[in-house]
């Protein structure tokens, strides 16, 4: 029989992982919700951001948490420019085209990383990495708790920005009613680029929060791609609340799947959820229309 304390620890671990997933998925769902494009380069961009955090630490000794503002700003700028120069220009009215372009980007990023950084696994040594906190029967690493709290705070800040600022409102307006937005004088193309930038900025934040406990290799992004898509599809494409709920659900599923089915087979849950949702409830839990 399974020890309930064991189960509790599993769920807790899943929740903690879910915090980061939420952040990654919020970026993806924002991009989808506003631009109606699927950003296949999401994982690779996260990987690049993780390398940025790694090199900031290795070369300049910047603590990953201290790097947050810089990496977030840098990621935003990178996303903004990427959209302006490439993604915004060439959809030719077919959504697969953007999927293919972002696939092309991920091929370029992954292999450029391999070329320049090599295939070795890179980690950051921070003094607080070995600190654990005891909650019930579970021992949880302090950085994971920090990253969990910080992800939620960043998501909340983003939520407030979307609710209260003019730009945030304009983003939400553009998501559903582009022509109406143009007619009140919103520069829709600019809002698109800003939205893409914010989506990538979320990845920058996630990278800072991940690095103290995680490692980076040129294929690190892969682990997150299908997970992020699954969360977004589960929650409903374009839905923020959905991304949040989906992030935690997937975090827990993964954690418990690993517990019951073992490390290898445990991952199957994610893909199966993804397939089943697409086949039987493509609107997800909170989506309005697929």
């Amino acid at each position, binding site marked *: 029989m399974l020890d309930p304390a064991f189960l509790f620890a599993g769920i807790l671990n899943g929740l903690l992982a879910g915090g980061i997933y939420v952040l990654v998925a919020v970026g993806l769902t924002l991009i989808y919700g506003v631009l109606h494009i699927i950003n296949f380069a999401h994982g690779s961009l996260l990987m690049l951001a993780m390398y940025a955090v790694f090199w900031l630490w290795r070369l300049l000794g910047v603590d990953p948490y201290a790097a947050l503002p810089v990496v977030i700003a840098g990621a935003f700028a990178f996303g903004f420019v990427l959209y302006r120069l490439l993604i915004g220009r060439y959809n030719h009215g077919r959504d697969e085209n953007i999927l293919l372009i972002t696939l092309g980007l991920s091929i370029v990023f992954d292999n450029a990383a391999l070329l320049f950084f090599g295939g070795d696994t890179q980690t950051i040594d921070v003094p607080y990495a070995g600190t654990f906190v005891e909650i019930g029967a579970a021992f949880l690493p302090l950085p994971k708790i920090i990253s969990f709290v910080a992800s939620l705070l960043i998501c909340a800040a983003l939520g407030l920005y979307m609710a209260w600022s*003019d730009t945030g*409102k*304009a983003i*939400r*307006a553009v*998501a*559903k*009613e582009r*022509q*109406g*937005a*143009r*007619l*009140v*004088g*919103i*520069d829709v193309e600019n809002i698109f680029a800003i939205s893409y930038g914010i989506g990538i900025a979320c990845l920058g934040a996630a990278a800072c929060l991940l690095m103290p406990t995680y490692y980076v290799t040129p294929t690190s992004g892969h682990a997150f791609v299908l997970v992020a898509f699954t969360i977004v599809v589960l929650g409903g494409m374009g839905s923020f609340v959905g991304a949040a709920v989906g992030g935690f659900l997937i975090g827990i599923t993964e954690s418990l799947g690993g517990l019951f089915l073992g490390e290898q087979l445990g991952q199957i849950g994610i893909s199966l959820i993804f397939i089943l949702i697409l086949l039987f409830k493509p609107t997800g839990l909170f989506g309005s229309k697929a």
Partner: protein
Amino acid sequence: MLEIASLRAGYGAIEVLRGVDLAVGAGEIVALLGSNGAGKSTLNNNVSGLYRPFGGTIRFDGHDIAGAPSTRIVEAGLVQVPEGRRVFPTLAVRDNLELGSYRRGKAARAQNLERVLAMFPRLKERLTQSAGTLSGGEQQMLAIGRGLMAEPRLLILDEPSLGLSPLLVEEMFGLIGQLNRQGLAILLVEQNVVQSLAIAHRAYVLENGRIALSGKASELAEHPDLRKSYLGH
């Protein structure tokens, strides 16, 4: 105020407007009439900068705005309330109105909001409701309210009576008259010929991309060709 000369426009390879001349003076209500597919919405969308015209000029206050981006046109005070309302369905009524002053009229946002809400008390009751849950008539008021938040100097109303009950249609035309009496110039694009002619100073009838008739509204109402342009007979 608005002067359009030999405007040619369309979508892709389709030429919808084949040389249109039209003008709206300060303080006027001008009605733009015509059956479906005559090119009324194409005209609006080119004036508002959603599309780039193929040729011709569009002048607003003497400046050529043909092909200028919509952001600049709104900034200049030429605001369109589009057909089908185009409100932001997931945003609250208040947010919809506030976004009306995204590009213009931001400084006086609070006063303008008061003014618009005084004009549409029904919107005041629903400030926190999302716009998608409003009825058709309420959405139309919201769309007009949103347009007014930009302190327009010329307001284009595209089919404001479409889909409204006869009672609401009366109310809508009353409102248009009221806005005009406050000094606002209005280009009214309508299918509802009789009521539009009753309220407008001058009118144009668009037929297959060209102006088929134009003149004083009172005279046009009597014109035998008006009916023919709609019913072919």
